[in-house]
């Protein structure tokens, strides 16, 4: 570190090495830890490994919400018009969680085929459809609504 140029170079090299390390670690971790988003038909046709954190989005089927005797665990079905996934959740449901509206659940598939949700996200807006579901065409949405209101 006698020459200012050398010192500058050393600093730049250290900074670059750390930043490259950061991005490598980050990308590696992202592969393992990012939870994939599934709609029910994907979850059924190509199920993730049980226990892997995933995110499930779809519509809560009409008439499917059942509260267990403990008063705090609910079972319901999330559908996308093509497939249906049973979901179990313990906790206070978010304010806009209701039958016939969209929901996104963070959780994992269990070996028994029931999705255990840790968190339910229902956006704080009465018009909310999960953004992941916005790509569904109007006809698809209609089908989901009809399917779930039967």
């Amino acid at each position: 570190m006698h020459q200012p140029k050398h010192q500058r170079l050393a600093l730049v090299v250290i900074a670059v090495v750390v930043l490259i390390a950061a991005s490598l670690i980050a990308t590696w971790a992202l592969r393992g830890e990012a939870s994939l988003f599934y709609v029910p038909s994907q979850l059924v046709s190509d199920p993730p490994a049980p226990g892997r954190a995933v995110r499930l989005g779809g519509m809560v089927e009409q008439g499917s919400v059942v509260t267990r005797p403990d008063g705090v665990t609910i079972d319901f079905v999330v559908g996308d018009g093509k497939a249906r996934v049973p979901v179990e959740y313990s906790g206070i449901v978010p304010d806009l969680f209701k039958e016939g509206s969209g929901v996104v659940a963070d959780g994992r598939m269990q070996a028994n085929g029931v999705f255990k949700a840790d968190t339910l996200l229902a956006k704080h807006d009465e018009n909310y459809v999960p953004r992941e579901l916005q790509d569904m065409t109007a006809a698809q949405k209609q089908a989901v609504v009809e399917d779930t209101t039967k």
Partner: protein
Amino acid sequence: MIAELGLAALWLAAALAGLQLAAGALSLRTEAGDDSDLGSVVRPAAVVQGILCVFAFTMLLWLFARTDLSVKLVAENSHSMKPMLFKVAAAWGNHEGSMLLWVTVMSIAGALIALIERRLPERTMRATLAAQAFVGLGFYAFLLFSSNPFERLNPPALEGLGLNPLLQDIGLAFHPPTLYFGYVGLSVAFSFAVGALLTREVTPAFARAMRPWVLGAWIFLTVGITAGSYWAYYELGWGGWWFWDPVENASLMPWLAATALLHSASVLAARDALRAWTIMLGVIAFSMSMIGTFLVRSGILTSVHAFAVDPERGTFILALLAIYIGGALLVFALRAGSVSEGQRFALVSREGALVVNNVMLSAILGVVLLGTLYPLLTEAMGVRVSVGPPYFDPVSAIFALPMLVVMAVGPLLRWRSDRLGRVRWQLAVIGTVALAAAVAVLLLAGAGLLPSLGLVFGAALLVASVLPLKGRSLRLLPLATWGMVVAHFGIAVALLGMASESAFNQEKLAAVNVGETTQVGPWKITLERVDPIAGPNWTALEGVMSARYDGGAPIVVTPQARTFWAPPQETTESALVTRWNGQLYAVIGKEAGQGRWQLRLWWKPFVPLIWLGGLLVALGGALALVGRVATDLRRRSAQRRIAERKADAAT
């Protein structure tokens, strides 16, 4: 009429910004000091622009206060039945209004620079104001062409749609403006960086001129993040204080960049080193606030609390982002080589520690940025993912933990060059505290790896942060040094709060009958009754509970489940009991059949330390800011006295 006045003022302000840019840019070609040239209109233009923007924003406030339903924005975001405070707050609780607030704050900052700042060479000053006008013009265009807050509604609405009830909260009413002050402060830092780069005047004087703005922005960001975290904690009813939500990351990333900038600007101001790096951070910090705005406003990422979602606006902000960052990087590429390199220093020195801190902060920033943008990248490839705490917690910790070590040791080191041996007894103290904390954590057991590390590092930093006070006269210690000590101490306090909450948090979820008692941690809680109650624009079911800590006197706790009718929506109002050693957090849910009510209860040991720490960090910033400004004023008046004496001697 009021709306038209506001709009006219806005157009005039935009025109002045155009003049400010043109005059500032043209005056760069001429030599400074020639007052007859075009450059002399730059400062007055900035001042008048500020006044016009304040006028326009006042008009918008007035429209909201009167609930003028012939204005589209008012009809969409307000309601005649709302309390006055929230009527006014609704003015900035939406996209258009908050953009106008942004432009207003930015133009006020420009006016202040034009009025006050005399330290820099006049040419650099003009270049800075021109850069600021350049940034401002983008926002004016955004407002006037795509988000006009004064747009009329014909025919007028009969009643407004109301404000999102979640936003009807005193904390949230002031939360976005706080963050905006931070973002705008960084835009000023950006202008200073570009201005200095254009005239090649990257000097300690430049760092001293820029530093108060960075400090101010950083204080607002710190307060904003702390308040936002507390708001999410008590208002969403989930009992969590940080979710790594894109909207939260949007405020964290500029904070990380501003923290790095603050430290590198200090090196530049004190030691005339890290010139190019400081400029680069100035550009990055503002870019981060633009990226944050883009993420929040475009709704491009799924977020629990994104609002005002509109792809067209997202595209507009993206275009602005590309122009600003691209432009600044271009100038940087052309000029950075000519910014001479400054003073040398050894790696073991105050500067060296600050460089390590900067690199680590940048690494954390990169990690958060990647995690936040990753869903976008994969979505482009047709795969939808969400990235949460399992990624952010460990990966940011990898870089945060070494940074905490440097934070503990760095302030003990001397500038230029030092030996670790000189501070060996301090290192021994820090090491002993860390060891004792590690033993205590192992004995308590049960805590996860990250919370345990947090407790150990937090305890060590708590002690290390006050060590620089040893052997110095506390009365004579400069305010800025006090600021550093308090801010570092605050980081340790916040870290201890986070680690303690994660390690020892206890939760109870139950459906209970009236009269029944349930338990969480050391608390016994009895549901006494459930009352229907009514507020100004909501009704609610209120659970009345009595909570006893360890058999002590009962404390009444009243969580509510509120129903708003405009717009129709339900919210959860949690109830908190704060003790010195933690917080009881209670939420009431739905009726659960057989006369039972859902209750969710948490005992969170030492959780208030998180926000107390955040406020201490901001207080440290405020002390440093006051200290710096006071020093500058003293220096300036001393210089004036010397100049007067010289003039006297000459006559």
